[in-house]
């Protein structure tokens, strides 16, 4: 009761202070996630994450002179593009939402973006769509995501290698969508930055003998061998054969290869090898868990990303001074990135106040948000090196 009184008082105060207040005092935001379907076990926490940010902003009473934010949920189904499109259409035309947190799966996200969001001019921030295809989708500057594209790891990998002065590598990948996608995105990124990929060859998992594959890799040569495979499968076989034949003695490992099994299989034999995998040590993650308390599982996949997606929409509105998507879409990148005062979860009230004062903010949030390229998260990777047979952290990037 006391809190309600406080909030009301604050709202009244803010409303009074606002100049020529023509703002509506309720802003609706859509949350379109697959509440039924293949990821239905993840979406309740994701939605709760987004709603937590909205509640925080409403409670602060600082958004656009005291507006409250009301979430409206809709079901994307994750797989049925028709149903997802219809649900999103309803959100915009029926409920009049000013922005959408979602969708979740890459396929339905693309469908909603091109069929509903772009024609109606509504901003969408997806917390979980990772397909590289969405980076190049036609979006009129309306689409953002707080999850990194799958292609991002290839770019990070290229940067790590070039920073170490390695500009000629051989690449082998496990013959599936993950391996091929990663190897191709790496090759494109590496060559664009002046590196040279001598060979980009597939290997099949589950074979006993990889000496022929390693023979081809060795013939092509390179300073390092990039193994985009699985440590429990052919990836280890390739490394073993390469070490045995003396073809390569240092390697670079993306996420599929980095685990305790790598240390166990090779130990000090691969000293000096490098790698990276998704990971962050940002204080935002810990802070997020703290403000969630026990209300829901804060570490569930894409839950912090959902909080960040909702927060970004509202902060951009504040920066633009309007809840009109056409006005605030240009501010999303601005509030997400440096320069400015860093903002952690639970500090949204402070951020809104700073923006109202015309100051700049850098939203860090629960996932150390940094939007790049067409408005997608750069993602956070842990760069590692093998030293004394152990995987050790170089830094987070």
């Amino acid at each position: 009761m006391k809190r309600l009184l406080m909030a009301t008082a604050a709202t009244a105060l803010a409303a009074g202070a606002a100049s020529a207040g023509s703002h509506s005092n309720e802003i609706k935001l859509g949350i379109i996630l697959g509440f039924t379907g293949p990821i239905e076990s993840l979406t309740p926490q994701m939605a709760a994450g987004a709603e937590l940010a909205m509640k925080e902003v409403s409670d602060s009473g600082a958004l656009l002179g005291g507006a409250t934010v009301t979430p409206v949920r809709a079901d994307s189904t994750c797989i049925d593009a028709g149903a997802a499109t219809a649900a999103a259409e309803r959100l915009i035309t029926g409920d009049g939402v000013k922005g959408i947190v979602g969708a979740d799966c890459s396929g339905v996200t693309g469908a909603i973006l091109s069929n509903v969001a772009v024609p109606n001019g509504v901003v969408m921030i997806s917390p979980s769509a990772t397909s590289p295809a969405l980076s190049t989708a036609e979006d009129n500057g309306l689409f953002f995501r707080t999850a990194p594209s799958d292609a991002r790891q290839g770019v990070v990998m290229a940067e790590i290698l070039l920073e170490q002065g390695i500009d000629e590598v051989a690449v082998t990948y496990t013959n599936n969508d993950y391996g091929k996608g990663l190897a191709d995105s790496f090759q494109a990124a590496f060559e664009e930055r002046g590196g040279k990929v001598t060979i980009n060859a597939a290997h099949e998992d589950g074979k006993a003998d990889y000496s022929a594959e390693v023979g081809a890799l060795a013939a092509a040569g390179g300073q390092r061998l990039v193994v985009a495979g699985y440590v429990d499968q052919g990836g280890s076989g390739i490394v073993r054969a390469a070490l045995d034949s003396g073809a390569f003695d240092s390697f670079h490992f993306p996420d599929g290869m980095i685990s305790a099994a790598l240390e166990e299989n090779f130990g000090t034999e691969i000293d000096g090898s490098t790698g990276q995998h998704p990971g962050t040590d940002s204080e935002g993650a810990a802070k997020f868990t703290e403000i969630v308390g026990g209300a829901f599982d804060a570490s569930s996949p894409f839950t912090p990303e959902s909080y960040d997606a909702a927060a970004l929409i509202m902060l951009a509105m504040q920066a633009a001074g309007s809840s009109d998507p056409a006005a605030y879409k240009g501010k999303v990148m601005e509030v997400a990135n440096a320069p400015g005062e860093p903002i952690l979860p639970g500090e949204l009230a402070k951020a809104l106040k700073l923006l109202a004062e015309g100051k700049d903010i850098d939203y860090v949030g629960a996932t150390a948000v940094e939007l790049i390229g067409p408005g997608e998260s750069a993602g956070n990777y842990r760069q590692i090196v093998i030293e004394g047979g152990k995987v050790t952290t170089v830094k987070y990037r």
Partner: protein
Amino acid sequence: MDLLNAIVALANFVIVPAIAYGSQLALGALGITLVYGILRFSNFAHGDTMAFGTMVTILATWWFQSLGISLGVLPTALLALPFGIVATVALLLGTDRVVYRFYRRQKAAPVIFVMVSLGVMFIMNGLVRFVIGPDDQRFADGARFIVSAREFKAMTGLREGLAIKTSAGITVITAIIVVALLFWFLNHTRTGKSMRAFSDNEDLALLSGINPERVVLYTWMIVGALATIAGVLYGLDKSFKPFTYFQLLLPMFASAIVGGLGSPVGAIAGGFVIAFSEVTVTYAWKKVLRYLLPENLEPDGLVQLMSTDYKFAVSFAILIIVLLFRPTGLFRGKAV
């Protein structure tokens, strides 16, 4: 110097691996060819017999390792090998008693035997997975290398390294000893001679008083020993996984058929033909040619005839070519 580098590079990536792989295939193909020549059917269960023998050897190896017994630089598996052989021979004789003898008395057609061996294959397949599981098992110990690539470079000052694994060395030496023993047995002992007689002409052999059950018994014993040795050597050199042993069936049959089914010499030759062609056809020659050719002729591409994905296709292709142009194989075995 360039010439030496080229030779070493070729030896490291083609010749040494192909000789080791060829020896393993030859031992496997010998087992297949003996069954075909003497018992007169294609034994599809051979790959899984190898897996069974290797499994028992691995279990015995682990037991020795837990007792702290080892052979020093040599792998402990060599010590455990006799256990594997005994168990495999027992399994094969049991299978013969329970399954094959019934069909032999019926004088069943060879194609029925082939189907029966297919059934036996699935049972052995399940048995191995049931006992040791479908995953990779590591059981190699002792020194890994006779010469490692780094040592070789330091020793010779060449740019290319040559690595010879202990397992490759053991494979070749064991294969030579086993083949020599087998040929001595077939050519110089009474039992060996009776086996060859039985293979050449069953009726005449029976008329001259050879006991067919005895011939069958000895054949299975030899096949069991060969299969276990081949399986353990392959496992030491590469790794043990039941599924890869099942996959070995194709190159082993190809070796036996290319050499001429029923001909032991052919099985050995066939093993090396298949191994060398699998490795050389998929090898990228760029490195070797860069040493050999003058600078302006250096190749830009990899000079690779076929991607390594097509390794198994090579043994298929050779098999088909041989069957088309010389159905009896290189060494005039029995027509298929």
